[in-house]
C-alpha cells in the first residue's frame, strides 16, 4: 500500500517552480529512490515531506488517510517520518551521545522536565551508535567528528527514533567505501524490518543495488518512474542528466 | 494643533530617515545589527559641540568635521573589531554583543568627557527664525533637517544607482561571497560603505543637536527609531527606510496626542512589534 502519496505537490521560490505538480506514491516497506540532476527539486521534496518547507499547492497523505499537508515539522514526526539532511545538521556543541539521547527522550515538555528517564532510552541510543560504529566516540563533541562520522551520526539519530519512514538525503555523498558499506547495510536492514526508506542519491550503482522503485525528477516534475534497470536506460533520463 | 502634529511628524520622519538610511547602508554590507551605529550620531553631535562651542570654530566647519569624524570612527571600529570577527565567521550574536560593548563603552566615554547634562548646539536659543505653516510653527533648523534628509536621500540614490561604486555596493548587499569571488575587494568597499553610513548618522546627530540638543544617550534612542523605521520599511531597502521613517514619525506623534509625550518610545516599539507580526518582511515587498 502507498504509505506516502503526494498529489500535485507545488513549491515556489520567487516564482520558480522547485516542485511542479508532483504526484507520486511511495510503497510501504520498500526502498524508493529519488534521482535527478542538480536542482531538480529532490531535496525540496524531502523538505516538503518532512514539514520543513511550507507547501504552496497540492497535498500529502500518509497511511492512506492522514493529511499532513500543512503540518509543522514536529507534527509530521508523529506520523512516523524521520530524516537526514543533505548538509548534515547536527547539534554541534553537544556530545555524540547527547545528539542521540536528545531525540529519544520525552517529547512532552512536562515529561522531559519531570519524567523519569527510562533505561531503555540509553539502550536505544547505544544500539543506534553501535550500528553506525560510533559508540567509542560517544563522548566526543559532534563538531570534532570527521565528515563521514558526522553523516553516520545523523543516520544513527534517525535510527534511534525507531520511526516507520526514513527520508535519507544523499546519505552516501562524500563517504569512503567502508562507511558506504555501513550505510548500505543499514538501508537493507531497515527494509528487512519492514520499514520504508526514501533515498535521494546520485550514485547509480547504489540506486540499482538498493532500490526497489525509483522516481526521476527534472525541473520539479516527475520525468520517469519504475524499476531501476528499466528507468536508468531510458533516453529522457540520460538526457536530463547530461543536459540537452 | 493638527498641523503642528503633522509638522512634528514630518520633522521626526526626516531625522529617522537619516538614521535609517545610514543603518540600511551599513546593514546591507555587514549584515548584522550594529548597536553602536547610534553612537556615530552622538559623536557627530558632540564633535560639533566641541569644535563650535568650545573651540569657537565656525559652525559650518565644525559640522563638516563632525560628519567626517563620525565616518572615521565608524570606519575605525569596523576595521578594528567587526572585520576581524567577520573574518572569523563569527555568528551574528557575537557581532551584536561586540557592538553592544562598543556602544556601552563609547557612550560612557562621551559622558566622562562632556558630562551627562543636556547641551544644545544652537548659539542663540529662542532667537531662531520661525515660520508659520497653516497654524503650526517650524523653525529654521527644522527646515534644514528636511532639506538635509532630502539631499542625503537623493545623493544616496544617485550614488547607489548611477555610479560604479554604487553598483559594487548593491552587489555586496546582495551576496558578498559572490562579489568577492568575482574579484571585488569587498573589505575595502565595505569600509567605504561603513564610512558613509556612519557619516550620515553623524549628520543626523548634529541636526538633532541643533534642533533639541545632545546628551550621551541620544544615540541609542535614535538608533532604535532608525532601526524600527528600517525594519518597518524592509531592512536594507532604501525607499522602505524612508517610508518607514515617516510612518514612524506619524505614528509616534499622533500616538501620543492624548497621552504624555514620554510614552513615545513605548508607542514606537508597540508599532514595531505590530508590524513584525503582521508583515515580518516589512511593509515594502523586497
Amino acid at each position: 500500500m502507498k504509505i506516502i502519496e503526494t498529489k500535485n505537490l507545488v513549491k515556489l521560490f520567487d516564482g520558480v517552480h522547485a516542485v511542479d505538480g508532483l504526484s507520486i506514491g511511495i510503497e510501504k516497506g520498500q526502498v524508493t529512490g529519488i534521482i535527478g540532476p542538480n536542482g531538480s527539486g529532490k531535496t525540496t521534496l524531502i523538505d516538503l515531506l518532512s514539514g520543513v518547507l511550507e507547501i504552496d499547492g497540492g497535498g500529502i497523505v500518509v497511511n492512506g488517510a492522514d493529511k499532513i499537508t500543512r503540518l509543522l515539522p514536529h507534527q509530521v514526526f508523529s506520523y512516523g517520518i524521520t530524516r537526514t539532511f543533505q548538509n548534515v545538521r547536527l547539534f554541534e556543541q553537544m556530545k555524540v551521545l547527547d545528539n542521540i539521547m536528545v531525540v529519544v527522550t520525552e517529547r512532552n515538555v512536562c515529561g522531559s522536565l519531570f519524567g523519569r528517564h527510562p533505561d531503555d532510552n540509553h539502550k536505544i541510543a547505544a544500539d543506534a551508535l553501535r550500528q553506525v560504529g560510533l559508540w567509542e566516540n560517544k563522548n566526543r563533541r559532534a563538531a570534532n567528528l570527521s565528515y563521514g562520522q558526522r553523516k553516520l551520526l545523523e543516520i544513527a539519530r534517525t535510527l534511534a527514533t525507531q520511526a516507520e519512514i526514513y527520508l535519507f538525503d544523499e546519505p552516501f555523498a562524500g563517504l569512503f567505501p567502508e562507511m558506504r558499506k555501513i550505510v548500505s547495510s543499514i538501508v537493507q536492514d531497515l527494509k528487512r524490518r519492514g520499514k520504508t526508506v526514501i533515498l535521494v542519491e546520485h550514485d547509480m550503482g547504489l540506486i540499482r543495488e538498493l532500490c526497489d522503485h525509483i522516481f526521476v525528477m527534472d525541473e520539479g516534475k516527475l520525468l520517469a518512474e519504475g524499476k531501476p534497470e528499466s528507468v536508468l536506460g531510458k533516453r529522457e533520463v540520460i538526457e536530463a542528466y547530461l543536459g540537452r | 494643533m493638527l498641523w503642528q502634529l503633522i509638522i512634528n511628524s514630518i520633522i521626526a520622519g526626516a531625522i529617522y530617515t537619516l538614521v535609517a538610511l545610514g543603518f540600511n547602508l551599513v546593514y546591507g554590507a555587514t549584515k548584522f545589527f550594529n548597536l553602536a551605529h547610534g553612537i556615530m550620531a552622538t559623536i557627530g553631535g558632540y564633535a560639533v559641540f566641541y569644535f563650535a562651542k568650545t573651540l569657537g570654530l565656525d559652525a559650518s566647519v565644525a559640522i563638516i568635521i563632525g560628519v567626517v569624524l563620525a565616518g572615521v570612527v565608524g570606519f575605525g571600529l569596523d576595521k578594528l573589531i567587526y572585520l576581524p570577527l567577520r573574518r572569523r565567521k563569527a555568528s551574528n550574536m557575537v557581532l551584536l554583543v561586540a557592538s553592544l560593548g562598543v556602544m556601552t563603552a563609547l557612550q560612557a566615554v562621551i559622558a566622562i568627557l562632556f558630562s551627562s547634562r543636556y547641551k544644545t548646539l544652537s548659539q542663540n536659543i529662542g532667537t531662531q527664525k520661525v515660520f508659520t505653516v497653516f497654524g503650526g510653527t517650524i523653525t529654521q533648523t527644522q527646515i534644514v533637517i528636511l532639506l538635509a534628509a532630502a539631499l542625503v536621500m537623493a545623493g544616496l540614490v544617485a550614488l547607489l544607482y548611477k555610479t560604479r561604486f554604487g553598483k559594487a555596493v548593491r552587489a555586496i548587499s546582495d551576496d558578498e561571497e559572490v562579489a568577492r569571488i568575482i574579484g571585488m575587494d569587498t573589505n575595502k568597499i565595505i569600509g567605504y560603505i561603513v564610512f558613509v553610513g556612519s557619516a550620515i548618522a553623524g549628520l543626523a546627530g548634529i541636526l538633532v543637536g541643533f534642533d533639541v540638543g545632545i546628551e550621551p544617550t541620544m544615540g541609542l534612542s535614535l538608533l532604535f527609531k532608525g532601526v524600527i523605521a528600517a525594519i518597518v520599511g524592509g531592512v536594507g531597502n532604501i525607499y522602505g527606510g524612508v517610508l518607514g521613517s515617516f510612518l514612524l514619525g506619524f505614528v509616534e506623534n499622533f500616538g501620543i496626542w492624548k497621552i504624555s509625550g514620554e510614552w513615545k518610545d513605548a508607542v514606537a516599539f508597540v508599532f514595531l512589534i505590530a508590524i513584525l507580526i503582521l508583515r515580518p518582511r516589512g511593509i515594502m515587498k523586497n
Partner: protein
Amino acid sequence: MEYLIHLAILFATYAILGVSLNLIVGYAGLLSVTHAAFYGIGAYTTAILLTKTGVGFFGSLILGIAAAAAVSLLIGIVLSRFKGDYYALGTLGFNTIVFGILLNWKNLTGGSLGIPGISRPELFGINFANNFNFLVLASIFLVLICLAARFVANSPFGRVLKAIREDETAIAVFGYNTLYFKLVIFVISAAMAAVAGSLFASYIAFIDPSGFRVDESMFILAIIILGGLANLRGSIFGALFLIVLPEIMRFVGFPSNIEAQMRQVIYGLILILLMLYRPQGLVGEYKL
C-alpha cells in the same frame, strides 16, 4: 563588615539574575535583552504591595512571580514570531515598553519619583532589618534558584533546549514542539528574575524605574557572557566579578562623578575583548 554584607546581598541578587538569564541565552540560545523588565516587575510588585497593602513580603514574592510569569508568557508568544536579530530587537523593545510603563503610570508606580519605604520581610519574628539576616535569606533563595536551574539544565528538557540552540529545525523534525520549550524556559527564567526583584526591593527600601532600563538588561547579559554561556557556575563567577570590580576601582580612586561611567567603559571593553579573544567567557564551554 556592613559593607561586605551589602556587597554580598548585591552579589546574590545579580547571581540569581545571571543564572536565570543564562537559561534562556546560554541554553536555549535566545538573545534576550529584557531581563531587567521581569526583575522590575518583581521589584515593583513587592514595592507596591508592601507599601500600599497589607500583603507581606512572601505573599508579594509569590504575586511577583505570578505577574512575571503571566507577562513573560504573553510577550514570549509574541516574540516567538521573531527570528535571530529581530528577536533581540524585540526584547529590547519590550524592555523599553515596560520601562515606559514604570515611568509613566504614575498612579501605580509613582513614576520617576519611585516608591520609598519598602519594608523588610517578616517571618517568625526574625529581625530582617539586620542586614546579615537578610543576607542569609537572600542566600537561601540563591541556593534554591541555583538548584532549580541546575535541575532544569541537566534534565532531558535542558538537553532539548541546547539542541534548539544548535539547530532549531533539526530538533523540530524529531518531534519537539520548540515553541513550547522556548516559552516554558522563558517563563521560568522570568519568574526567577522576579524573585531577585522582590529581594532587592525589600533590601534597598526604595526603587525607581531607572534601575530596570535596557542598560540593566545589558549588564546582566555582560555577566553571563563574561562567566560563560550555558555554564551556571560561570554566571555566579561573572556576577561576583562584575560586582567586585567597581569596588576595586573605587580604590584606584576615580572621582565619584565619573566612577559610574568608568564602570560602563569597562563593561563595554570586557564585552568587546571577550568577543574578540574569548567568546566562551571565563569558565564557559560554549563558544558563542
